[in-house]
């Protein structure tokens, strides 16, 4: 069976190190299109910048299955020039302003270096330490020499991908882990379905790419691949952590319900049975807040039975996230196996 190996890890590194803030996904789109070169199928870039790929199978009575992964990531936009290389910025996508001081950033196509500093602790009062540093007090500092930076440029954290045995550390695991999985699916498509692959844009600011992609692709059902927080840290008071969302190391996280979507129960069952049959570890993401492209896709046209599967990772939407190689491998294995086992009968079965 096809799996995640060194070539895919290298590709993940390239994708995580690329900068593609929602609305400016060019750098990742370019890598995706390059990777797709030489693989059969109809490839197009739509009005919003989604990359849509259709790979038809050869069996009879094939389901049209949309599989999506978003190309964009959270980041920043430069919005005002204070002079001397100092820029005000806004956040793009959900970010905690407490995660920003003391971080290095990359700006624009050329990845120009910048930093988000903070007042020296020596000059900071006890009272100030209790207050968070508000966004409007932070600046991106590119150095006093100026440079090829202009207002409107996007910026991301400068974190470079690294691997320590079973551990992966990078920015933008959300959702580059899934982009690699989707690329591998396109390269090794299950023959029993028509694979409609959507590399979407603008997920982080409201699932905007997925909305139009689902309309264009008009699938029978959809599987969204994403990355979800593992809040599996100990609680401050030693009490059991009952709201962990997912846990690192327990395998792909299957969505039953989030704030945007009730997963189709037939698809939940299908993924669960696939995992049991194939011996792939899985976990169910705790139902609750958060959402994926499925939130837009399942409301497309007359409706699309949908489900999301995520790779768990810690430090989502921060400068440095942590994921486990095995969770990623198993997410690919689960989705690949589940697609291989898909038949039209599934949609005829009871929902439960």
């Amino acid at each position, binding site marked *: 069976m096809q799996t995640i190996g060194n070539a895919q890890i290298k590709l993940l590194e390239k994708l995580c190190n690329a900068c593609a803030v929602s609305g400016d996904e060019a750098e990742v789109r370019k890598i995706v299109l390059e990777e797709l070169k030489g693989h059969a199928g109809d490839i197009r870039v739509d009005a919003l910048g989604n990359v849509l790929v259709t790979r038809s199978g050869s069996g009879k009575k094939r389901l049209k299955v949309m599989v999506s992964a978003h190309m964009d990531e959270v980041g920043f936009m430069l919005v005002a020039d204070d002079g001397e290389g100092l820029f005000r910025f806004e956040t793009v996508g959900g970010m905690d302003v407490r995660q920003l001081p003391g*971080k290095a950033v990359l700006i624009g196509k050329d990845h120009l270096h910048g930093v988000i500093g903070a007042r020296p602790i020596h000059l900071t009062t006890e009272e100030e330490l209790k207050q968070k540093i508000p966004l409007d007090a932070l600046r991106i500092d590119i*150095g006093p020499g100026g440079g090829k930076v202009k207002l409107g440029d996007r910026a991301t954290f*400068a974190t470079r991908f690294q691997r320590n045995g079973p551990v992966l550390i990078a920015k933008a695991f959300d959702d580059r882990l899934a982009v690699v999985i989707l690329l591998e699916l396109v390269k090794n498509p299950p023959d029993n379905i028509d694979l409609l692959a959507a590399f979407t844009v603008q997920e982080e600011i409201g699932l905007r790419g997925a909305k139009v992609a689902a309309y264009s692709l008009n699938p029978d059902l959809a599987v969204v691949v994403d990355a979800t927080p593992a809040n599996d*840290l100990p609680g401050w008071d030693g009490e059991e952590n009952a709201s962990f969302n997912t846990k690192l190391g327990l395998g792909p996280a299957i969505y039953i319900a989030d704030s945007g979507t009730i997963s189709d129960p037939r698809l939940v069952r299908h993924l669960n049975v696939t995992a049991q049959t194939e011996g792939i570890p899985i976990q169910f993401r705790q139902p609750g807040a958060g959402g994926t492209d499925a939130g837009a896709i399942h409301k497309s046209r007359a409706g699309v039975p949908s489900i999301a599967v995520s790779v768990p990772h810690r430090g989502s939407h921060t400068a440095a996230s942590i994921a486990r190689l095995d969770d990623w491998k198993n997410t690919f294995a689960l989705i690949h196996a589940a697609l291989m086992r898909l038949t039209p009968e599934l949609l005829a079965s009871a929902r439960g």
Partner: protein
Amino acid sequence: MTDITPFLKELLTAPGLSGYEDLAAEIISAKWKPLVHAISRGRLGSLHGLRRGTGRSPRPSVMVATHMDAIGLMVTGIVDGFLRFTEVGGVDPRVLPGTLVTVYATGAGGHRPIPGVVVQPPVQLLPPEIGPNPVPLEYLFLDTGLPPSNVADLIRVGDVVSYAQPPLELSGETIAGHTLDNRASVAALTVCLEELQSRPHVWDVWAVATTQEEIGMIGAIGSTFELHPTIAIAVDVTFAKGPGSSDWQTSSLGKGPTLCMGPNIHPALYKAMRDLADRLEIPYGLEYVPRHTGTDAFATQVVAEGVPSLVLGIPLRYMHTPVEVVAIKDIQRAGRLMAEFIAGLTPDFIEKIFWDD
């Protein structure tokens, strides 16, 4: 003048928390060896490089102290594979969430560096009163991503943790990174030693990379006693103007080193250095420090019978964050100014130092 940036960048990749400076000392020692006549480590770990002067023995000597230790974190506990930690030196916990670090593990599983990240637990795992406010250091975790059993084998309480932000060159010949406090000054002293290769000097020069400055100038105390210099110059970074910092304590980035005046500085040395900078037309800023300079000079001044001391500052933005910023030019100017000062020290310079009362 040779480009000091490659050496500085190499030095910025080395850890060297206060008390654990060996890896930094090795890099500095290799760089200084060809520039000095003798090199050794002091009893508290400071690196002592000696350039002998041309004067008659016993010669007076000038000690230049630049601390090589870094602030950082230290492991205080392990909970389910996550690390609790404390600070070594002054750390604003508000810059920590999402910060890349290296844990220098010394557990039973062998000694090796392990990458990690400071994580801010989600709100539901914190005391309710924290809410959207900054998370105090005691509630932050350090995460290596490794399974708890691996962590227990590899890491132990007391292991030191460095920032891992790689140095980045910014525009206008500035550089960002952690531990520019005070490796920028080590680089300036290196520039000085390079300049002195072609400049005869009468006095002996002790180039010293001190230890444990961040926790109370400990290395400088021992080194000053051991080397017994005639005068001492401490070079350390100082607050540069920048976002969030524009008050009277700050100096301009890239507009030259600063000269400090105040009780920690011998006024005659201050005047001599200032006159020299004026004569050479080397730009400089002035700092008025009413009490503690927060530099090794506060230690050197009161060792043994007392040592006339001077402080040179290199303006730096965002001090004690992983993204400190300095201007390379300021490093070069500080190095050149020191070399000129040292080359100009006459055999009887010290007799001319007097209290102008």
